[in-house]
């Protein structure tokens, strides 16, 4: 499984990459939506995109819209990971085509829970 981690903060990318790698994902990074589209355009298969909202050049919402417009990328699960936490912002992201949404700050368990919901990670006994 490969995940594309998209955030203009290298700190946040590093944290998310760490969590995903511990769950067995290969990871690729991008610093904005445009770079992320470039990654997808190379044709490497991506199962999951973790997407920040506020980024320069192309933000996360624009990225989601672009991905959903392209049938070739139908298999990419789109999960926002962002500080945007107003109710209407979340609705906007879902309307644009995001599949899931993690609000920052998050714990590694929160990411795991969401990936279990999405069927990307095996269910394990809750502890």
């Amino acid at each position: 499984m490969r995940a594309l981690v998209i955030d203009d903060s290298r700190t946040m990318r590093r944290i998310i990459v760490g969590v995903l790698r511990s769950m067995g994902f290969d990871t690729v990074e991008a610093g904005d939506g445009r770079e992320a589209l470039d990654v997808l355009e190379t044709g490497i298969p991506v199962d999951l995109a973790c997407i920040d909202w506020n980024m320069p050049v192309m933000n996360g919402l624009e990225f989601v819209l672009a991905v959903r417009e392209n049938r070739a990328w139908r298999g990419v699960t789109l999960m926002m990971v962002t500080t945007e936490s107003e109710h209407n912002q979340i609705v906007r992201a879902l309307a644009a085509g995001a599949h899931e949404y993690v609000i920052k700050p998050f714990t590694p368990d929160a990411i795991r829970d969401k990936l279990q919901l999405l069927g990307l990670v095996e269910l394990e006994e809750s502890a």
Partner: protein
Amino acid sequence: MSTAIDLSLFTGTDPIFTIADEVFSAMIDGEPGLLTEWVGDVPVIADAMHAWVDVDGVAPGRVLLSTERDTALQITRALLAMEPDEQVGDADFVDALGEVANVVGGNVKALVPDPGALTLPQVTHERPPTSPENLLHELALAWRGRLLVISLWSLA
């Protein structure tokens, strides 16, 4: 961020404290309890680092984090789960601190009606210019006993 961030609505815990507590317990400490309200006089911060984000829009505002450089380094180490002997690069340091300000600021933004957009975080040694009359709220915190101040400013 309008002055309509009516903190009197929040009976009980200061919401800014709750936000900071969640950021630190979820991402920096891995457990709650290491961030508390500062007790006693708040000393002047020597060798300070400042990290902030602005919320633009109808009533613009700023969320500012201020702390000692060494504390900021420890926060970076904890946030990035660094080994004790790992060096903290300047770029890592600036980015990490900025991201903490970004996450705190983003959550503060959600408390106000009709917020605008969040700017990219800035991190500097000098305090950004502020006027006392523009101070909306100030919270002095102790993280592992070290001083961290979060302040909210009107930019109108």
